[in-house]
């Protein structure tokens, strides 16, 4: 697959805080690529560099063969960017916003209507409403329409689903799956680990570093330890008890179960006996398939709180940070 976006050893710091630490990645044309990580991981910083809005301290990036520093004007013509913060004109109507974006890219709404039709149709009944008066879900659809109206080669979506309910999130990903068929390269960032499965490939990102990159299946297949799902009548005590069990490496809540990464295979019966001895009732122990979140936690090198970045509040300073 030819590359659409090539990131080569990119680092970026804000004062003492290393927002991005030597990131290298290659994303193929037409790929739906996810950056999965919590707030503060560096996702927004990376997206701003990729969209030419921020200069890297070192390293370089090309988008569709253009360098983000020397060819920034070319890149701006061929990419669509939906920032995490709603940044359309609040006092322009839905239709006016869309027309505005079409006109600055020297095109019309009609020219690429097939691209946005699916999304825009849902907000068209409100086309005369000021964008600032739309609900969250509708704002998101308008922002996506505006980012698509000029038929970009690459689409950057920075946390499009943050704070969005599970149903709307699912619908949003269904929309992306349809867009992918138009052969647009799509880069999406999200803090929701379960959304990884909707991507062709993902990079797990934490504290400015890539923890792993692979297909969602590949990420999960690389999980090293046997994983057990455990349940009992007293989930509150169960967590403490499972953590104290000798064979347990890590134990944490996962939906209705506690997931326990084990040091060895075949710990199943030992754990059950141990829990019975501890007085637990209605014990359920079975092998579990790890998901992306299990993998992410295994990969985070510091499972306990790490000292915060000190010396000035640059993490929260101004526009160039991840907290919105």
């Amino acid at each position: 697959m030819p590359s659409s976006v090539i990131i080569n050893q990119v680092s970026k710091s804000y004062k003492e805080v290393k927002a991005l630490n030597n990131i290298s990645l290659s994303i193929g044309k037409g790929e739906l690529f996810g950056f999965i990580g919590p707030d503060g991981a560096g996702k927004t910083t990376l997206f701003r560099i990729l969209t030419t809005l921020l200069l890297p301290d070192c390293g370089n990036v090309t988008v569709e063969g253009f360098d983000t520093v020397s060819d920034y004007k070319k890149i701006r013509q061929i990419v669509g960017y939906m920032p995490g913060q709603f940044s359309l004109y609040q006092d322009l109507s839905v239709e006016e916003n869309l027309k505005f974006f079409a006109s600055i890219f020297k095109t019309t709404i009609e020219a690429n209507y097939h691209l946005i039709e699916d999304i825009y149709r849902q907000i068209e009944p409100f086309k005369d409403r000021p964008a600032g008066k739309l609900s969250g879900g509708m704002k998101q659809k308008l922002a996506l329409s505006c980012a698509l109206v000029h038929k970009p080669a690459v689409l950057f979506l920075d946390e499009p689903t943050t704070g969005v309910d599970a149903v709307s999130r699912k619908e949003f990903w269904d929309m992306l799956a349809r867009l992918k068929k138009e052969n647009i390269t799509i880069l999406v960032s999200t803090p929701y680990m379960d959304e990884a499965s909707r991507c062709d490939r993902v990079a797990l990102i934490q504290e400015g570093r890539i923890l792993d990159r692979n297909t969602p299946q590949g990420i999960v297949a690389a999980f090293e330890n046997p994983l057990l799902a455990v349940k009992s009548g007293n989930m509150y005590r169960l967590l403490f008890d499972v953590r104290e069990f000798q064979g347990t490496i890590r134990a944490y809540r996962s939906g209705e179960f506690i997931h326990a990464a084990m040091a060895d295979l075949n710990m199943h019966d030992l754990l059950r006996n141990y829990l019975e001895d501890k007085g637990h009732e209605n014990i359920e122990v079975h092998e579990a398939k790890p998901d992306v979140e299990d993998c992410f936690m295994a990969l985070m090198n510091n499972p306990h709180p790490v000292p915060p970045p000190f010396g000035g509040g640059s993490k929260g300073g101004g526009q160039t940070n991840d907290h919105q």
Partner: protein
Amino acid sequence: MTINDHQHIIHVENLVKKFGSFVANDHLSFHVKKGEIFGFLGANGAGKTTAIKILCGLWKPTAGIIKVAGLDAYRETEKIKKNIGYMSQKFSLYDDMTIAENFTFFGGIYGLRRKEIRLKMNFFLEKLEIMEYRDRVIQALPLGWKQKLAFSIAIMHEPAIVFLDEPTSGVDPVTRRQFWDMIYEAAHEGITVFLTTHYMDEAEYCERVSIMVDGRIEALDTPGELKKRFSVQSMEEVFIRLARK
């Protein structure tokens, strides 16, 4: 539904809230037990925030009987505010003040004495193992720390109920679980926890959840019962079934 005020720390009967002709809360009826972890779920725009504002004594209901910690949501809103704690991702702490200053400030608002504030602060900072950072400005702290601190401050006055509005949004998976350890601990000590979340695995951690759709509560039960009712494996599927109607 039989209602017993001594057991039900939140009692809501036919709560209606209208904005002009728009009905944001359409005859909500539910109760929350003392010490319960109650998940208040719903799609964006379903009316959750409106209901929470009423329960916190910030907005007046249009109609219905609403008692929070035994207090009336029409006449005793100031007393309600003293008996609850609140945090969300959007509003938690003052970014440009230090950890210690935030404790002092919020402790003062809750009417705690200086000595009580100091004791509470020491207790939480020791528990979070961040005593040596007490004079750090909040802004410089990782999000996960902020959220844990905000939660500690929201319960420092030992409220009857703490309202958590998407408290773990955007937090990494390990910190998210540490946050839930704190929630369980608070509930264990008798504080009722009323929370919203978009993480459906967190819905499983609640003792009971309600799911709001278009201003109404469409379902309210334990996660186990809800999954059984819809014959599905996860709360996400329950949510999608209900909210997609």
